């Protein structure tokens, strides 16, 4: 993603900028369907199993989940600040905001890891130590969905953290001039945030009403 040198297949910088943006959005559409398939499976089983499935969701840690959502939403705001300040031509500010983004992302992963550890202690990890006699088969299916969804999300977030760290480094050392790259990585980060926005009510808030 060269910033100042124009790719030979483009005729203007404007064209290149629009093209890469469109490419990123097309990629995100793919990602929507990727996570979406999992969510479609979730809805199917929620209807299929009914109350049993929802009851399993009660075993998730709603306090940690809510805190984590706040952390991730804040990181998105930091990312937006990084993009804005970088486009304004600043060099120090985006590095600081990116560092904040990466740190918040990391703390999300740490909190998530804590949750996983607690769930391990409660014998809720399928294939590892799930207590079938205590929780039942439907709960195990719910937790398979839970670990698939949060695991893949965490993987996406880790990739995002790497990208953000690289970005902070490149801007800090002055190798990256303002251009599309920051915005594209920003789009990716916000997308990972949106996935969580939908996973949160489906995983943590189901079945809290009774």
């Amino acid at each position, binding site marked *: 993603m060269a910033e100042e040198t124009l790719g030979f297949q483009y005729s203007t910088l404007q064209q290149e900028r*629009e093209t890469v*943006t*469109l490419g990123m*959005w*097309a990629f*995100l*559409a*793919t*990602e*929507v*369907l990727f996570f*979406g*398939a999992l*969510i*479609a499976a979730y*809805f*199917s089983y929620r*209807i*299929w*199993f009914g109350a049993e499935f929802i009851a399993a969701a009660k075993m998730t840690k*709603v306090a940690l989940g*809510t805190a984590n*959502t*706040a952390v991730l*939403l*804040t990181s*998105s*705001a930091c*990312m*937006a*600040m990084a*993009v*804005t300040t970088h486009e304004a031509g600043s060099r120090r500010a985006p590095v600081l905001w990116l560092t904040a983004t990466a740190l918040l992302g990391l703390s999300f992963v740490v909190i998530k890891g804590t949750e996983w550890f607690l769930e391990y202690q409660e014998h809720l990890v399928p294939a590892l130590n799930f207590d*079938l006699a205590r929780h039942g*088969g439907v709960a195990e299916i719910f937790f398979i969905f839970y670990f698939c969804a949060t695991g893949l999300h965490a993987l996406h977030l880790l990739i995002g953290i790497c990208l953000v760290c690289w970005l902070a480094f490149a801007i800090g050392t002055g190798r990256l001039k303002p251009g599309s790259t920051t*915005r594209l990585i*920003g*789009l990716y980060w*916000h*997308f990972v*945030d*949106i996935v969580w*926005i*939908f996973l*949160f*009510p489906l995983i*943590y*808030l*189901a079945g*809290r*009403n*009774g």
Partner: protein
Amino acid sequence: MSAGTICRCWLALLILLALTTGSAFIPLGTANLFVSLGIAVTKALIVLLFFMELKTSSALVRVFAAAGFFWLMIMIALTTADYTHRTDQRVPLDQVR
């Protein structure tokens, strides 16, 4: 995008988060699901429109952004249409393990 807009969006997102978590504990039956999904859609829209700059993007980019969600709706709608109309009952097979 100004720092003020970002700040307001951030506050709105946190308020919505508090709302959705709070509402989940009010017994509303199936309505809880729709309330929490409605709030999730609102939050996602804030992120999409402001943080991801769809508000100032071209129509083309907006169509691309909507396409994924639209096709996902198709998938969810038609799959769940089957499950809501099933007349048979689910039965676990003999436990294998």
